[in-house]
C-alpha cells in the first residue's frame, strides 16, 4: 500500500510540475524546489542589483522602516496591548490579499491596504488600467458581495487606477 501511495504521490507531483512549467522542453530537468522559512534579515527586502529593476516605495523600504518612513498595510486594533483576535485578523488578511491578487489578475499596482473601522472592512488597492471600466466595476461589486457574505460584515473596496506603476527607485 505504501508503494502505491508513493506512486500516486509522485504522479501528482509530476503533473503539478508539468502544469506549472511554461515551456515543455524544461521537462528534461525535473527538480524539486523547496524554499526554507524566510530568514529574518532577508524578509521583504529586495537586494540591490544592476539598476534596471523598478521598485515601488513599499518595496524599496525595508521592514525596519515601518512606523518611521513606511505605514502599515493592514490596520486593525487587535495587536494592541490587551486586545484579542490577532490571529483571526491575520488569517482574514492573508485570504483577502490572495483573493484580490487573483480576482484582479495582473492589475494590482501596489500592495493591498486593509483597514477595519468598527464592523466595516475597507480594502484599498491601486490598480493599473488594463481592463475597461465596466469590467472593473463588475469585479468590484462581485468581490464586495462575495467577501461580505464570507466574512459576515460589510466589505467596501476603494480602488484607484493609474496608467502605470509608480516607481520610487531603480535597483
Amino acid at each position, binding site marked *: 500500500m505504501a508503494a502505491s501511495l508513493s506512486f500516486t504521490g509522485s504522479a501528482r507531483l509530476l503533473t503539478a510540475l508539468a502544469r506549472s512549467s511554461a515551456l515543455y522542453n524544461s521537462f528534461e530537468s525535473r527538480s524539486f524546489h523547496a524554499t526554507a522559512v524566510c530568514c*529574518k*534579515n532577508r524578509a521583504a527586502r529586495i537586494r540591490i542589483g544592476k539598476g534596471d529593476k523598478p521598485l515601488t516605495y513599499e518595496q524599496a523600504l525595508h521592514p525596519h522602516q515601518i512606523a518611521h518612513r513606511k505605514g502599515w498595510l493592514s490596520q486593525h486594533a487587535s495587536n*494592541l496591548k490587551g486586545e484579542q483576535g490577532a490571529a483571526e485578523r491575520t488569517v482574514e488578511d492573508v485570504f483577502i490579499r490572495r483573493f484580490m491578487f487573483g480576482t484582479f489578475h495582473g492589475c494590482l499596482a501596489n500592495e493591498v491596504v486593509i483597514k477595519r473601522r468598527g464592523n466595516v472592512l*475597507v480594502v484599498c488597492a491601486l490598480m493599473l*488600467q488594463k481592463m475597461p*471600466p465596466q469590467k472593473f466595476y463588475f469585479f468590484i461589486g462581485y468581490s464586495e458581495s462575495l467577501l461580505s457574505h464570507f466574512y459576515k460584515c460589510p466589505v467596501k473596496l476603494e480602488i484607484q487606477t493609474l496608467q502605470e506603476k509608480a516607481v520610487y527607485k531603480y535597483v
Partner: protein
Amino acid sequence: MAAPLVVRRELFSLVNILGGISQLGPRGLGACSNHRKCSQTRFELLQRPNTFFHTAAYLSSTPFTITVTDEPDTLFQKVVVLVKAHDRAVLDSYEFFATMAAKELGITMGKVFEPPKDIERLTLLKSVHIYKKHRVQYEMRTHYRSIELLHVTGCTAQVYLEYIQRNLPEGVAMEVTKTAMEKIPDHILEPMWKDHPIDDKSSK
C-alpha cells in the same frame, strides 16, 4: 464645461456609472480606455486633467430617534476615555478632534495627557536551524492618550461617546471608564443614635 480634447497617450471617455452599482455613492466620472477619444465632462469632485476613476466608500448611518422619559438622568462625576494605537500621530490628531468636539458641545474637560507607551518585545532565533547566538527582535508599541470629562449627564455622555466612537480611526482602540454619582440611600442619611438613644448606662 468641457475640457479641450486631449491628444496624448491618455485618452478619456465618459462612463455613466450611477445607474449600475447600487451600494457606493457618487464617484468621479471619467475613466481611461484606450483607442477612444471623447471630450471630458468635469464632475464637481474631480479636478484632475488625467482622469483615472476611483471608488470611495461612503458609510451611511440611520437617523437617530429621540426618546423622552421621566426618570432622572444618570450623573457622571468623571468619564475617562483611553485611546490606544500603534501610531502617535494618529493619536495626536484624534485628541485634537475629541477636545474640539467637547469644547463645541460645552463639556468641561479634565486632564488630557499621554500615559507612557508600552513596548512588547519578542526575541526569536534568526535562523531555522542552529545559530543560537544570532537572534532577531520584534516589538509592538502601544501608545496611549487619556481624555477626562468632568460632571456630565448620561445623555450628554452617550451622545459625545457615540460621536467619538463613530469617528474612531482604523487601528485605534478605545476604553471608556465612567464614574457615576449615586444618591445616598435614605436609611443611612441620618445617624441611628438620634432615633434610638442609648440607655444602658446602668449596666453595672
